[in-house]
């Protein structure tokens, strides 16, 4: 049979994310594939060098719209390590709490996407409805649904009140009940089994060879989880299981994520029980001592890696972000080879890809053939004018 090469993406190959795949097809079967990334490069690492350590928190939070807390926590542990700041225990506990709420939110979101990709849209509707519970918890704690802005150098910005604690526990109980249903559904439902079993296979040794991380690796029985391997924040005081699975396929990745939800609920309860009294932040000088630091963080998608170099001023010399999706890409080509075209979106979605994290660009508007770059001041002015027309005046604030 003759071979046909087709492009898939960059518009929405799976999830609403820009990435392009070049697939070589023999009939319905894939015999070769290549991943093209870079549609979302925003130059965040360069921008970070022009801002202060504190401003960078808010920039780095915007590396990703889902694991925003993962990136800031990873970055901030580097800053605090260089500044030799002793972060109060209560602040660490609150960071852990937000981190786990974020994981719940991310995994539920993924489960919905997985349902959508396999043609099981009721699952998508259910999980996204339930996800509102955890988003409400996050809004309660931080005031925001996705960019929490809870971290600051030396601690956190908001405390947890007993009222919030009770409210979170109430919602976690609802989610726990719902997750039982997802576990049952994920392991017994005929549609789910038919669409996920033996699809997108990634054998254990290939996962290791290609450096897969997070649930993608753990579904191939790779026992890797930064929370266990090199505990940060208060994870060494918490009791939870490292979830792995040995089916190496999309089904395994689903099972790992659903069971991780259960572990996250356990962690959230423990953290709320533990929550020591005390301050939530210490003061850290604006200028950070010169030096270099590297730290990792177990984001919902896997190991997040940050490198930071300070030159003794209030601005970093170099910031490097390696998001988990980047580490999982080499594995995707392997998973696709030999599979069927119809399974491609399912396989891609199964690593829970996040392009914004991976690509991190210059904003320019290509209006009437003329390239126009908006500066920060212009964007701000544009925003203010835009809202003024709609009757909201920010200049008075």
């Amino acid at each position, binding site marked *: 049979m003759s071979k046909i090469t087709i492009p898939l993406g960059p518009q929405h190959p799976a999830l609403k994310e820009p990435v392009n795949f070049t697939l070589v097809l023999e009939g319905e079967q894939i015999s070769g594939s*290549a991943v*093209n*990334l*870079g549609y979302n*490069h925003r*130059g965040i*690492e*360069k921008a970070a060098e022009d801002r202060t350590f504190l401003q960078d928190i808010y920039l780095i939070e915007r590396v990703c719209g889902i694991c925003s807390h993962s990136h800031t926590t990873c970055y901030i542990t580097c800053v605090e390590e260089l500044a030799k700041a002793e972060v109060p225990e209560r602040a660490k506990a609150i960071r852990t709490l937000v981190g786990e709420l974020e994981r719940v939110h991310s995994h539920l979101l993924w489960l919905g996407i997985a349902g959508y990709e396999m043609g099981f849209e009721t699952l998508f509707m259910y999980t996204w409805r339930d996800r509102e519970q955890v988003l409400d918890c996050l809004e309660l704690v931080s005031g925001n649904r996705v960019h929490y802005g809870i971290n600051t150098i030396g601690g956190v910005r908001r405390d947890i009140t007993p009222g919030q604690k009770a409210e979170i526990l109430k919602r976690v109980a609802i989610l726990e009940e719902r997750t039982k249903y997802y576990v049952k559904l994920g392991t017994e439902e005929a549609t789910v089994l038919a669409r996920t079993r033996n699809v997108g296979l990634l054998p254990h040794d290939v996962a*290791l*060879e*290609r*450096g897969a991380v997070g649930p993608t690796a753990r579904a191939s029985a790779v026992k*890797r989880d930064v929370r266990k*391997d*090199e505990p940060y924040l208060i994870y060494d005081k918490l009791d939870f299981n490292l979830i792995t699975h040995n089916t190496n396929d999309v089904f395994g990745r689903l099972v790992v994520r659903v069971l991780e939800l259960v572990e996250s609920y356990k962690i959230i309860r423990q953290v709320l029980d533990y929550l020591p009294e005390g301050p939530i932040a210490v003061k850290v000088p604006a200028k950070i001592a010169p030096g*270099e*630091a*590297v730290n*990792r963080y177990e984001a919902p998608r896997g*190991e997040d*890696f940050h*490198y930071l*170099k300070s030159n003794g001023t209030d601005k970093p010399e*170099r910031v*490097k972000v*390696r998001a988990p999706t*980047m*580490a999982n*890409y*080499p594995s995707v080509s392997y998973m696709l080879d030999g599979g069927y075209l119809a399974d491609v979106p399912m396989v891609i979605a199964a690593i829970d890809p996040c392009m914004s994290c991976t*690509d*991190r*660009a*210059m904003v*320019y508007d290509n209006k009437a053939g003329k*390239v*126009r*770059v*908006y*500066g920060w*001041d*212009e964007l701000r*002015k544009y925003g203010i004018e835009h809202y003024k027309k709609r009757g909201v005046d920010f200049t008075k604030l």
Partner: protein
Amino acid sequence: MSEFEKEEKIKEKLAAEFGAAITELTIQRKNRVWFEIPADRLPELMKFMKTGLGYDHLATITGFDGGEHLGAYYHLTDTHGIISARAKTPRANPNLPTVTGVFPGAEPYERELEDLFGIKINGLKPGRRYPLPDDFPAGQHPLRKDWKLTDAYPEEAASKKEAA
């Protein structure tokens, strides 16, 4: 033995294998080791780290601009600790050997070095540029310290003047 038993052992093993090639080795804290190695020995080092030391996961490669020298850090982990190996290359003719022979997953990180720092990676198989757009001006490398936004987008300077 000191409190950094594991790290000291790594130091010994590295010294036994590479001798004087390894310089400026520092044990920053538990699970953190940094050192420098000549660029031409990188593939050999990667191989030893992977098979001899069990540091079988290349977390990422961080490029840097150190003025006269450009270079990169190779961050390796055994899941518990992180060893960062630094390699320098002269700014006048920056090049580093590829490590994709040992870590196939390093390809996108090496393309980043080529695109953002202009470090030629010897032995890297041909492919699309990453992560900059296809129409980005050739010979410009944004993460170098002397690069300004106006180098690639001159209209930015004009729009700033207009705004002022």
